[in-house]
């Protein structure tokens, strides 16, 4: 795609993000029982829902919460994955094989089991307010998804760790932390960053998947997942309830597909498109 078009698209997505934040922070759409399930019109571009609330506002709010969950989960799992991956690749031996076994166990189950357990486990702390619910859901998602990043970091660290400059740094007494930050990080980061952006949509999707099935956020919290579930349950009466959040989700994912899809060379190494999470939702 041409760079200019992509830039315009980026600007649009950013604007949408800002708008959705503003709406999430400041606005609750009014309940208007005279406007229940109204079809899209100029006053309400996406129509209204079963309580007469403006759907555009709700979709933007949902977009924001979905983003909040997805982005937090991605950042946390990147952090966990990098630390564990570096630990495994750097220390090797028993630590490495234990971590590898753990990863194998965690990736041979439908992740829904672990997520559900974690959500139940976090419930006492999560049920404070909307923010805490989002944070703990993101944490639960991150705790089952760090394997992609750990595997990637480990492979990259293993490649670097035998280089003479690491040996040299060790010889003059550098601590593991220093070796990681000044010597390993520059080699690992470029690919890791690509992996992060390439995997970001799947975190967003996983939130939608969870909320859709009833394991993630639930009303009164609005996310794209809960909105889609609402739309699915009522498409026979009001299809715009399904189309509005669906098209917004599609536009967001399409943007990521265009802007951050890994190129041919790195695709295999990033662990993207290997099935599993990506195909789940």
């Amino acid at each position: 795609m041409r760079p200019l078009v992509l830039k315009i698209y980026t600007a649009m997505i950013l604007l949408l993000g800002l708008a959705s934040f503003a709406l999430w922070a400041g606005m609750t759409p009014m309940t208007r029982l005279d406007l229940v399930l109204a079809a899209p019109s100029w006053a309400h571009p996406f129509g209204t829902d079963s309580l007469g609330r403006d759907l555009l506002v709700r979709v933007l709010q949902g977009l924001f919460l979905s983003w909040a969950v997805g982005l937090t989960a991605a950042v946390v799992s990147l952090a966990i994955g990098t630390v564990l991956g570096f630990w495994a690749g750097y220390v090797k031996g028993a630590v490495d094989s234990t971590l590898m076994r753990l990863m194998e166990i965690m990736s041979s189950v439908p992740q829904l089991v672990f997520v559900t357990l974690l959500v139940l486990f976090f419930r006492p702390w999560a049920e404070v307010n909307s923010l805490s619910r989002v944070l703990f859901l993101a944490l639960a998602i991150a705790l089952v998804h760090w394997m992609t990043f750990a595997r990637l970091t480990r492979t990259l660290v293993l490649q670097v760790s035998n280089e003479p400059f690491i040996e040299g740094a060790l010889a003059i007494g550098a601590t593991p932390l220093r070796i990681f930050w000044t010597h390993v990080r520059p080699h690992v980061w470029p690919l890791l960053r690509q992996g992060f952006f390439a995997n970001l949509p799947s975190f967003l999707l996983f939130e939608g998947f969870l909320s859709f099935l009833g394991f993630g956020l639930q009303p009164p919290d609005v996310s794209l997942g809960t909105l889609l579930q609402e739309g699915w349950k009522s498409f026979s009466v009001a299809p715009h309830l399904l189309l509005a959040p669906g098209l917004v989700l599609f536009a967001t994912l399409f943007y990521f597909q265009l802007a951050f899809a890994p190129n041919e060379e790195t695709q295999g190494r990033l662990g993207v498109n290997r099935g599993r999470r990506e195909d789940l939702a």
Partner: protein
Amino acid sequence: MGRYLIRRLLTGLFTLWGLGTVLFVLLRYFPGGPFDDEVALRPEIRALLEEKYHIHEAGFQAYLRYWSQVLQGDFGTSLHYAEQSVSRVIASGFQATLALSLSGLIAALVFGLLWGTLPHLSYLWSRPARAFSQLGLSLPTLFLGPLLLWLLCFRFEVFPIRVDGSVFSYVLPVFLIAFRPSMTLGRLLDVRLRHIRREDYIRTLEALGSHPRRLIWRWSLKNALPVYVGSVPGLAAGLLSGSLLVETLFSIQGLGFQFTQSLLNRDWTLALGLTLFFGVLLIGFQIVADAVLMWLDPRVKIQ
């Protein structure tokens, strides 16, 4: 190769044991027992129920008992469905899920082959085909499923809205299960084929005037196939969990449906049994795919 497979099998068994143990401990000591949500359960009845299902047995003893039962093929009794053994629930759901996943897998492989080779077969089609795959990759089943249900089953009434056992009613669920995996597969294949086209033997053949179609089908595809086969276990895993969503959408009473229900009902024995069952399938798939991969390309060394 035989030795390798035996080693794989042993680590697989070890993984399964670890999985069962971790989940057993988690499920046992996590808050939210199966009888906690019951509205008005008199304490003595609750105690009776708990005794019947061995809820209060000492941890290690229960653990040993669970494994000895599992090794005999008995996953315990469901805590939600009255008097239904977990094995029975699995057996009853397995047929639907197997039919769905297997036809989904075949459809995904066939359509993946189509999406992957289409951009290379004709110049005219290459750009539209790639654009279509970009669009398809950003269409989540979460949206596509309800959308197609609305359009094809409700609005235009092409397909029946409920799966009633006829082959025709399975078309849409299978399509939904296969759609995204086939897109990812097609993309993998497309990328691989692009690499192969730059290799000397292909360029030589091209210079000698070989027909493009023959170039792809006869010469390039053979070398691209290992990538394709290598992604099958991940794909199978994805299909199993992907059937979860589709089974919910079409209310098909398969394993995925039972699985979500068991988690929603806090039916831990059923959830544990299903998880172990999924684990066996996934690890089995992985081993078979590795064996096929080694058979296809003896140079491959998998650690």
